[in-house]
C-alpha cells in the first residue's frame, strides 16, 4: 500500500509546525464569548431598623459565563470582593441568586449557593442550570450576627443583576488539547512505521530477554513432561494489561500446542475465562493440533484476590509445573505466587505494568517484562512486520518524551520558561 501524501518530508515538517503552533496556544485557550458588564452598583435591602453602619458595600464586577469545556448545565459566576471584605470586616458571606428571564427582565430571584467571605478572588459554579434557558444572576454581600447558629439580624447589599446568560455543552475540551496533540503525534509515528513495515522495510527493535526465553521455557516443560501454567492476572477484560496478556497467551498457546505440552490457564474473571478459552482454542487450531485442546485447560478459580493466589499456590505445589507465566495486572499476591513458583524450581517469566509489583517479580522470577515490554511482547513474539512497526512507533514516542524531559530540565532549572505547563493533564 502506498504511503499517504502527508508522509512526504515537506508535509511532515508543515504538520509539525502546525502542531507546535497549536501546542503554544494551549495556555491561551479560553472559552470565547465571555461578556463583561460594567461594575454593578450596590444597594441595601435590609430592614430599616438596622443602623446604616451595619450595611456592607456591595460586591462589584459581577460576571457570569457559560462554564467552558464542560458538558453543559453549568454557569460560572465571579465577582470582585466588597471593600468591606477584610479580616473583621462587615461582609461575612456572599450569597448567589439566580432568576429566569421573563419578558426580557429578571423574574423571581432564588438563592443557588453561598461562599464565606475572606478570600481574595471569588467564583461560584451553578451546576443546576438548564441548557438554553436564559438566567440573570446577582450577588449579595451579607453582614450578619449569628447566635446558636441562627442569624439574629442580617444587613445585605446586592449587586445589579447580570445577564442574560445561558449554559451550553461544548464540542471540545480545550484543556485537553495537549493530550490530543500527543495522541496525534504518537499515532502518526505508529501508523507511519506500520506502513514502513508493510512496505517491506526491515525495522530493528531491541531484544526482550523475557520473550527470547519463551521458547526455552516451553521447551523445558516439554523435556520434563510437565505442565505450563499461564496466570493472566487479577483484572478483567476492561484492563489493557489483561488484553496484552491475552495477546501473549495466544502466542504461548500456539507454541505449547506445537510442542504438545499441556498448558493450563487458571483465571479469576469469568470474562477473561471466556476470552482466554477462545484464544487458546484458536491457537491450537493454528498450530495444527485442534484435537489436543481441552476445554478444561482454561478454568475459573475465584474472583477473590487471595483465594485466587491460594488456589494457584496449591496447584503449583501439588503439580509442580516446569514453567509459569505471570502476565497482566497483579497486586499484593504477586510475590506469594512468584515465590511459590520459585520454591518448586519452575522457570518463571513475569510481565506487569504495575510498578509497585515489579521488584517482587524481578526478585522471584527468572525473567520480567517491565511495563511497556508487556505491551510490546505480543508483537515481539509474532514477528509480524505490522506489529513490529507499531513497537517502533512506540519507541519514537519514547524518544520524543526523552527530548521533552531534557528540554524541560534545562528550561525549568534556569527558570527560562514554564515548560511543564504544556504537559499538565486534566482528569
Amino acid at each position: 500500500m502506498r504511503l499517504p501524501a502527508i508522509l512526504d518530508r515537506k508535509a511532515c515538517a508543515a504538520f509539525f509546525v502546525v502542531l507546535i503552533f497549536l501546542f503554544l496556544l494551549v495556555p491561551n485557550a479560553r472559552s470565547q464569548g465571555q461578556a463583561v458588564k460594567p461594575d454593578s452598583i450596590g444597594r441595601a435591602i435590609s430592614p430599616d431598623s438596622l443602623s446604616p453602619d451595619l450595611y456592607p458595600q456591595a460586591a462589584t464586577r459581577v460576571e457570569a459565563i457559560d462554564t467552558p469545556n464542560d458538558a453543559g448545565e453549568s454557569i460560572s459566576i465571579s465577582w470582585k470582593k466588597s471593600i468591606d471584605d477584610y479580616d473583621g470586616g462587615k461582609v461575612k458571606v456572599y450569597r448567589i441568586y439566580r432568576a429566569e428571564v421573563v419578558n426580557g427582565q429578571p423574574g423571581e430571584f432564588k438563592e443557588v449557593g453561598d461562599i464565606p467571605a475572606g478570600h481574595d478572588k471569588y467564583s461560584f459554579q451553578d451546576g443546576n442550570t438548564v441548557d438554553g434557558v436564559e438566567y440573570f444572576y446577582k450577588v449579595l454581600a451579607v453582614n450578619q450576627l449569628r447566635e446558636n447558629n441562627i442569624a439574629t439580624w442580617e444587613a445585605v447589599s446586592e449587586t445589579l443583576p447580570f445577564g442574560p446568560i445561558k449554559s451550553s455543552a461544548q464540542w471540545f475540551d480545550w484543556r485537553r488539547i495537549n493530550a490530543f496533540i500527543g495522541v496525534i503525534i504518537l499515532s502518526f509515528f505508529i501508523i507511519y512505521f506500520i506502513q514502513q513495515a508493510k512496505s517491506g522495510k526491515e525495522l530493528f527493535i531491541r531484544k526482550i530477554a523475557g520473550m527470547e526465553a519463551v521458547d526455552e521455557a516451553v521447551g523445558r516443560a516439554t523435556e520434563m513432561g510437565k505442565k505450563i501454567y499461564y496466570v493472566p492476572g487479577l483484572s478483567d477484560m476492561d484492563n489493557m494489561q489483561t488484553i496484552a496478556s491475552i495477546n501473549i497467551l495466544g502466542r504461548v498457546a500456539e507454541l505449547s500446542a506445537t510442542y504438545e505440552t499441556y498448558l493450563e490457564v487458571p483465571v479469576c474473571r469469568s470474562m477473561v475465562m471466556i476470552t482466554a478459552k477462545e484464544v487458546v482454542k484458536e491457537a491450537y487450531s493454528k498450530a495444527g493440533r485442534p484435537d489436543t485442546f481441552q476445554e478444561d485447560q482454561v478454568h475459573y478459580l475465584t474472583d477473590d484476590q487471595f483465594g485466587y493466589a491460594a488456589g494457584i499456590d496449591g496447584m503449583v505445589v501439588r503439580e509442580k509445573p516446569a514453567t509459569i507465566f505471570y502476565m497482566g495486572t497483579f497486586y499484593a499476591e504477586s510475590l506469594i505466587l512468584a515465590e511459590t513458583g520459585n520454591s518448586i524450581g519452575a522457570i518463571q517469566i513475569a510481565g506487569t505494568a504495575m510498578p509497585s509489583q515489579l521488584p517482587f517479580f524481578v526478585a522471584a522470577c527468572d525473567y520480567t517484562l517491565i511495563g511497556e515490554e508487556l505491551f510490546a511482547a505480543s508483537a515481539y513474539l509474532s514477528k509480524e512486520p505490522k506489529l513490529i512497526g507499531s513497537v517502533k512507533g512506540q519507541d519514537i514516542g519514547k524518544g520524543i518524551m526523552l527530548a521533552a524531559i531534557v528540554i524541560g530540565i534545562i528550561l525549568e532549572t534556569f527558570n527560562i520558561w514554564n515548560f511543564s505547563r504544556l504537559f499538565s493533564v486534566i482528569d
Partner: protein
Amino acid sequence: MRREIPLIITGIVGVGFVIQYFIPHAPFSYMSDWFSDWFSIVGACAIVLGALNLMKMSAQKVIRKKKDWGYALVIIASFLLIVIIGLSEGKDFRVPGTRFDWLYNYMYIPLSATMFAILAFFVASASYRAFRARNFEATLLLVAAFFVMLGRVPVGDVLSGFMPEGWRLSDLASWVMNYPQSAGQRAIMIGIGLGIVSTSLRVILGIERSHIGGGK
C-alpha cells in the same frame, strides 16, 4: 465475517472512546457511563459461567476420583454452603448477625488475612535472594535497601542522631524514595503509557487480533 464483525465493533467503539475524552458534549459525555454499565451487566451474567465452570471441574474430579480430588470436594462443599446460607437469608444476607455475616467475618476474612500474612515470609526470602551482593547492581540495591529500611524505622534516627539535621538516616531514606525511586518509577510509567497507546491503536486498527482468537 466471524472475525470482521468483532474487529469493526472494536474499531468503532475504540475510536468513540478516544473521541469522548476530548468532547464533553452529549452523547459522548455519557459514553463512558453507558459502556461501564454494559460491562458490569455482561460481567454479572458471565460470573454464572465462571461458577458453573468451577463446579463442573470440581465435580468431574470428585466423580472420576482424580488425583487430589479431596480438595475439589472442599470447593464444592464450601461453594454450596455459602450459596445456600446466603440465599436462605434473603435480601438481608449482609446484615450484621446473620449466618452469612458470621461466615464472612469468621471464615472468609481470617482466611484472606492468613494468605496476606504469608507475604511477610515471602518478602524475607525474596529479599535475601535479591540483596545478595553478586554484582555491582545487586550491591547498589543492597546498600540502598539497607539505608531505606533503616531510615523507615525509629532506630534509624536513634543510630544517626549525632548527624546534623537533614543528614540523618530518615532523611536519606526520604531522599532515595523521593528522587531516584520516583524518577525510576515515572520512567516506567511513561513507557507504560506509550505502550497502552500503542497496543490500543493496534487493537483499534485491527492489526492485533490475537485477543479475538486470530493471527493474520
